[in-house]
Structure formats: C-alpha cells, structure tokens
C-alpha cells in the first residue's frame, strides 16, 4: 500500500495584493506556491491544483495515478477536478515569473474532450476550495492544506441602476427662479406702458383734438378796456382825444 501523501502546512490563498481581476465571475487568482514543496517534489514530479466545491472538498480522494486525474468536464458531476499541471521546477524557490496563477483563464480547451488538463472557466460563483497536489510516477507524494472557501463575483443586472437624480442642483433653481421673476417684471412693465399709451390715445380721440398730446389748452379771456376816470380840471372836448389842460380865459376884448 503506497504511503499517504505528506501534508504540507501551506494554505493556498487568493493574493492579498491589489489585483483588480483576482476575483471575477468565472475566474480567480491564486498566489504562486513558491518555495513550498522543497524536498517533497523532484524535478520529474508534476504539481496539480485540485479545485472542488466547498461542500465537496471533504469527499475528495487523491487519484492514485495520472490516468485517474479527474478532468475539467467532471466538475458538475463530481464536484471537483484537477488542473494546472505544472512542473515542480516552476515553483522552485528561485523561479521568477508572473505574480499569480489564474484559475479559469483558458477558454479554448473546454468541451473539446482533449486529454490535456483544461483550465476552463468556472461555471458558477462557488464557493470553491483548492489545494496543491504533488504527483510523482507512483501517485500522490505530497499535498497542501485546503484553502478557505473562495467565493466568485455575482453580477447584478443593469436594470437595477436608477439614473434619476435625487434633486435639482442649486444652479438650475437660481437660474429658473431669477429669470422667471425678470420675465414677469418685464412683461408687466411692457403691458403697463403700452396700456397707458392705448388708454391715453383713446381719451384724446374722445376730446376731438389730437394735435396736442398731453397738454390741455387753457383759453385766456382778455376783457375790453374800461373808460378811465377823468382827472379833475380837465376839459375833454372831443372825447377820446385825451385830456387838454385848461387855458386861462383870454382877456375880454375892449368895447
């Protein structure tokens, strides 16, 4: 009976660094398990990633050989599969390459029935648990612990977005109210001026004389001159000729 695989204390996890795409609807990223396997993996060994639904991870049994590895297509039925077969050298301490592993990033291989392990997109948001398994020529040699449950994103429908603004901005209120006020005052002023004009022209037509705009013509009555009182001592022989001062009587002629 082969020895059970060694349990390594490493726990796979989603990278804590700021990667916006570390969790999408059908893929997720995992930290590279660099320098984890050490002496448990030879150069000829392959390191697989086991992906299982969180509730099926306890029931997963390591496959005895490479031929028994569950493929990607078995995920809906068995609840688990193995993928990302990598040479152990890729996870050696000195290896430097991409910062994270992307699970579910290969869209070309699914459904083709090819024998190679397929890293196809995950069909549902999960949650999933993963672990790494070192497979040698004679079967599994070492495994890591199961990760914490990884829940993928669920997208909402755009019909839940409400585009209506909460309230009108102050700009709109100020402009609308001030302009409405100005317009009202202007309309009232024009009506007032035109109205007074029309009313004035109607009054002028009633009085019959349109030549004088806004002034009433006052007639001035000139009375005829009265006769002046005659100064005393004056004899006026033809009347109106003015006053002749009295002449001393001429001496009577001698008889």
């Amino acid at each position, binding site marked *: 009976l082969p020895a059970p695989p060694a349990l390594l204390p490493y726990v796979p996890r989603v990278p804590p660094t700021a990667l916006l795409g570390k969790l999408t609807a059908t893929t997720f990223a995992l930290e590279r398990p660099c320098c984890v396997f050490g002496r448990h993996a030879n150069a000829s060994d392959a390191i697989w990633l086991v992906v299982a639904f969180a509730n099926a991870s306890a029931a997963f049994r390591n496959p005895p050989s490479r031929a028994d590895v569950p493929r990607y297509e078995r995920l809906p039925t068995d609840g688990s599969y193995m993928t990302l077969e990598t040479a152990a050298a890729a996870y050696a301490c000195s290896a430097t390459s991409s910062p994270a592993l992307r699970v579910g990033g290969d*869209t070309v291989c699914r459904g083709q029935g090819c024998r190679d392990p397929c890293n196809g997109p995950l069909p549902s948001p999960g949650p999933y648990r993963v672990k790494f398994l070192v497979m040698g020529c004679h079967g599994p040699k070492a495994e890591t612990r199961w990760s914490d449950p990884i829940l993928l994103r669920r*997208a909402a429908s755009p019909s839940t977005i409400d585009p209506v*603004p909460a309230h009108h901005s102050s700009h*709109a209120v100020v402009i609308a109210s*001030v302009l409405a006020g*100005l317009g009202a005052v*202007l309309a009232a002023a024009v009506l007032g*001026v035109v109205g007074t004009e029309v009313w004035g022209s109607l009054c002028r037509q009633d009085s019959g004389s349109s030549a004088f705009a806004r002034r009433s013509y006052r007639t001035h009555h000139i009375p005829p001159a009265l006769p002046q009182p005659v100064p005393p001592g004056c004899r006026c022989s033809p009347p109106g000729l003015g006053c002749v001062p009295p002449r001393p009587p001429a001496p009577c002629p001698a008889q």
Partner: protein
Amino acid sequence: MAKSDDGIRILQGLLVFGNVIIGMCGIALTAECIFFVSDPHGLYPLLEATENDDIYAAAWIGIFVGFALFALSILGIIGVIKANRTLLLVYLILMLITFAFEMASCITAATHRDFLTPNLFLKQMLERYKKSETDNNNDKWMTEGVTKTWDKLMLQNHCCGVRGPSDWQEYTSAFRLTYNDADFPWPHNCCVMDARGSPVNLDACKLGVPGYYNSNGCYDAISGPMNTHAWGVAWFGFAILCWTFCVLLGTMFYWSRIEY
C-alpha cells in the same frame, strides 16, 4: 428746460451704450453656441442615445437668439438716436420675444444638465456598448454611436468604464453576452496600449496588475465638457438677460418720455 434736455441726452447715451453691449454679447453667444453644437469632444452620440439631448437644443436656440440680439440692438440704437416711437415700439416687442426664447434656452440647459448623472451613462454603457442584436435601425444607429464613442473615450483618456473597470464586473451587460468573462473581464480598450495599439501585456491586464490597465473611470472626461457646455449656455445667457432687462426698462422709460 436745459436740465431735462441734459437728462434725456444722458439717457440716450446710456441706452446706446447698453445696446452696443447687447449686440456684442449676442455675437459672443452665437459663437459660443456654435462651438458647443460642433461637439469638439465627440460626446453627442452618448446624449443622443439617452434621448435627452436638450442641452443641444438649448445651444441651437442660443445661436438664433444671439443673431436676433445683434440685429435688434442695431434697431434699438437707431430708434434711440432718432427718438422714433414706432421703431422703439417694434424694438421693445421683438426684444420681449427674444427674451422669452433666451429664458427658455437658459432654463432648459440648466435643468437638463442635472439629468446627466453617472448612473445614466453607466446604464447606457452596460446596455448598449458592443450590443450585438439590435431591434431596429434606430437602435442600431444609437448602439454604434455609443460603442464608437466609448472606444474613443477609453483610448484617448486612458480610462475604463464610468467609475472604473469594476463596472464591468459588478453588472452584467450587453458586452458580457458576446465577450466571455474569462477572456474579457473588461474590454481590451481598458488595457494600457503600446505604440501599435495592442495591449502591452494582455494577461497582466486581465489579472488587473496595476500599470497594465486603466484604473480610472471615464466620468470626468464626459462630465467636464458637458458641464462647460451647459453652464456656458445657461450662465452666459443669464448674464445677457439681466443686462437686457435693465436696458429694456430704460428704453420703456425713454419711450414714454418722447413727445409726438
């Protein structure tokens, strides 16, 4: 007598000055509105697709109002100098009509700007960008407009989505129906491009490694020009109307003082 003569002369001078300002502002308003209608930032297809392009209608009204103000200011100057009651009456009535139109334009521009919220553009982008099945010609036209505009926006402004690339992850979209999530967590136009127009590192862009994708949203690139457009039409028109109000009141007073 001499004193009121002087007063009338001063009033005439002020009214001519007022009308000169109105004429110049009318030309400026026309020029500004022609600039906005010409859509230098290429954002009109987004508004057309919202079926709420009233800020463009306000700019169109502004073009004609500007011309009208210029023509009427000349009429006003002639009427004031000649002290002709008929000319001034025509001037007053036509100015009142122009005032009403410009009021409509300002209020439209100000209130409709409020409808252009980030959520409006987000919803439109998710429902129309790269939509593959369109119902009719009109739908197809609007979809193509939105798609071209967004592609251009994302490439030129180095931005992604309305608030950020996570818009594409938080909501399903028409884009998602055609382009699967594993290969396109967000459109490839969100990736940092090299000189030939292809992503520098597509895998890093898909993973969201900082530096290989555009992390800011495009809302600033959209709202900036639209704010300038709406406030330019609304507040400049408001200023012209306040000045015109004073000139019109002065003209009415002058008109009532002219004798036959």
